[in-house]
């Protein structure tokens, strides 16, 4: 099967105040037909620039972009045959919804009767059939975004690009539209490239995600794999809410039986960890809030005082403090009887932690899944 979209050493540089800055730095990746591929990262990481280069709205400084093995690096936006949804929705304000959705077909010179038919079909898919004669300003934000999606898919593009399409919507609508877009992806036969700064969107919707940092993809993987086996500390702390706890720990203990110590905590590790820790005096240990458990004293790694609990509904987010004042977050079902100020015994789930290089932040070991070869 051919690759739907291939980025081949793509670089984008800008000159700012005489200095050359790489917004996208030597990015290479393959996106398979029908994939829901997401670029996620903080603002300025190069995710939107990458999408705009794929769309042809931004030139490529060096490298190649291929659609279906065809080099499109120097092909204009108009001829790339993509569909795109913009962050600010960008509906044509003076056109009816019908004309907005039908615009790409009108440009393509399709007969009116056929346009009407296709617009109906797209509107039906997005449940906005009753809005077709209205103007964009008469619609709610969510409905406007549906129209924008309709305009992007009406020509049945092979590649559909979405640039932070949900960021203009309020929280509840975002959740709704997330499901809606996923459902749409199942129904239309298109490769979706999605850009977002919201890791929840990235995790819930994507087949694969690229975590972007400073113009590079820190990790390209399935959401599950990114969560379980983050390749870098930065990836680990970016993905997951609340963020992963990361502590500076000293490597002590006997050969073959390493013990990590620091921040008022002591965590004994196993023989399997020893190899990864070999040669390190200090490491950074990452534990997800949900991988910390309240246990009886004899099973505990360390103890901490409950400072604050925030009920999330099903679970609570607890802020703990160890003997030497390190803040720790724990998420779990905590007995209601525990009040703030209580002393708790905490254990680290031995199947769910990460150890990172103290300087580079590169993952040395994952408790849950062995690190796959780069």
């Amino acid at each position: 099967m051919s690759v739907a979209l291939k980025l081949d050493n793509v670089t984008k540089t800008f000159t700012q105040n005489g200095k050359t800055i790489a917004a996208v730095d030597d990015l290479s990746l393959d996106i398979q037909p029908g994939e829901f591929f997401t670029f996620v990262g903080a603002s300025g990481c190069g995710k939107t620039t990458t999408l705009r280069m794929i769309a042809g709205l931004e030139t490529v400084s060096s490298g190649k972009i291929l659609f279906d093995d065809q080099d499109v690096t120097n092909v204009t936006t108009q001829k790339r045959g993509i569909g795109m949804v913009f962050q600010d929705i960008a509906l044509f304000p003076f056109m009816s919804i019908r004309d907005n959705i039908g615009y790409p077909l009108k440009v393509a010179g399709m007969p009116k009767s056929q346009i009407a038919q296709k617009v109906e079909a797209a509107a039906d898919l997005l449940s906005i059939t009753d809005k077709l004669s209205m103007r964009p300003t008469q619609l709610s934000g969510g409905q406007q975004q549906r129209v924008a999606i309709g305009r992007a898919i009406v020509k049945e593009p092979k590649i559909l690009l979405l640039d932070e399409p949900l960021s203009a919507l309020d929280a509840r609508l975002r959740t709704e539209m997330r499901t809606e877009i996923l459902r749409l992806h199942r129904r239309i036969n298109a490769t979706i490239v999605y850009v977002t700064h919201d890791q929840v969107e990235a995790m819930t919707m994507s087949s694969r995600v690229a975590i972007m940092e400073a113009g590079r993809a820190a990790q390209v993987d399935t959401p599950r794999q990114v969560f379980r086996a983050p390749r870098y500390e930065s990836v680990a702390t970016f993905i997951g809410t609340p963020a992963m706890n990361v502590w500076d720990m000293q490597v002590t203990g006997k050969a073959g039986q390493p013990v990590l110590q620091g921040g008022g905590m002591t965590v004994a590790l196993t023989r399997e960890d020893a190899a990864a820790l070999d040669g390190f005096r200090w490491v950074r240990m990452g534990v997800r809030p949900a991988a910390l458990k309240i246990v009886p004293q004899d099973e505990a790694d360390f103890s901490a005082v409950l400072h604050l609990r925030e009920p999330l509904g099903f679970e609570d987010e607890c802020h703990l403090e160890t003997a030497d004042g390190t803040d720790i977050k724990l998420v779990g079902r905590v007995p209601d009887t525990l009040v703030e100020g209580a002393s708790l015994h905490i254990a680290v789930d031995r199947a769910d932690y990460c150890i990172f290089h103290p300087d580079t932040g590169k993952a040395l070991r994952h408790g849950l899944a062995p690190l796959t070869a780069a």
Partner: protein
Amino acid sequence: MTREFAWRWMRFLWLAVGMLFVCFPLYWMAVTALTPRTELFRPPYDVIRFSYSLENIRELLSATQFLTFMGNSLIVALGTVVINVMASTLAGYALSRFEFRGKKTFVAATLWTYMFPPILLAIPLYLVFSYIGLRNSYGGLILAHVSISLPLNVWIMWQYFQVVPRSLEEAAWTSGASRLRALIEVLLPSALPGIISAAIFSFALSWNDFAFAFILQTDIAMFTLPVGLATFVEQSAIHWGLIMASSLIVSLPTFALVFFLQRYLMHGFSIGK
């Protein structure tokens, strides 16, 4: 409560005084225009009159070159509007969408031109136009009017295109539309209020111009209305009835323009969002 009430009335009072200053001359113009000449200079000069006639207007249309002046004014004003709209739209688009050398200087220069009073430009233009044979022509006067109205219009259109989101245009491109097609079908409708303000501004400027027309058009057959009206003031007599009648007619298009297009002007500020 009462304090607020008092302030309110104070404001209305000020407005009323202001309105009086604006409206009374207009009213007096209209009344004078519609008063027969025989009654015009016979006291008492009542503020409210009851006998009206179209005598002045009839004379204006039959015995003077008013219609020629009007035709000249219309041709020159329309020419000015057409050139302004086309040039300022394209220039505004280019300024808002492309980076090029000297852009800042160019934009600053458009405003510098406002530091010169029209009369200062009119005399050199007279010499130049005499030399190249553009004096006493529609084209010459249109060019002169464009030279003073276009800079501000370029500025206006530049501002307008900056407000129209780029994504609107990009949405058209990703829909397959070429740059020109996107400009015409997507950007222009969004910038319509700007285009209409540019048109009104250049029309008003051309319609009201005296300095350029007075200096560049030496042949009475090429006079525009403001210059033509001045011919009603003769050494021995000032034809107030004729002046007021023609003033009345001259002011009608401006009123009509603002009245019918203000809807667009007001609407304009919310479009493109």
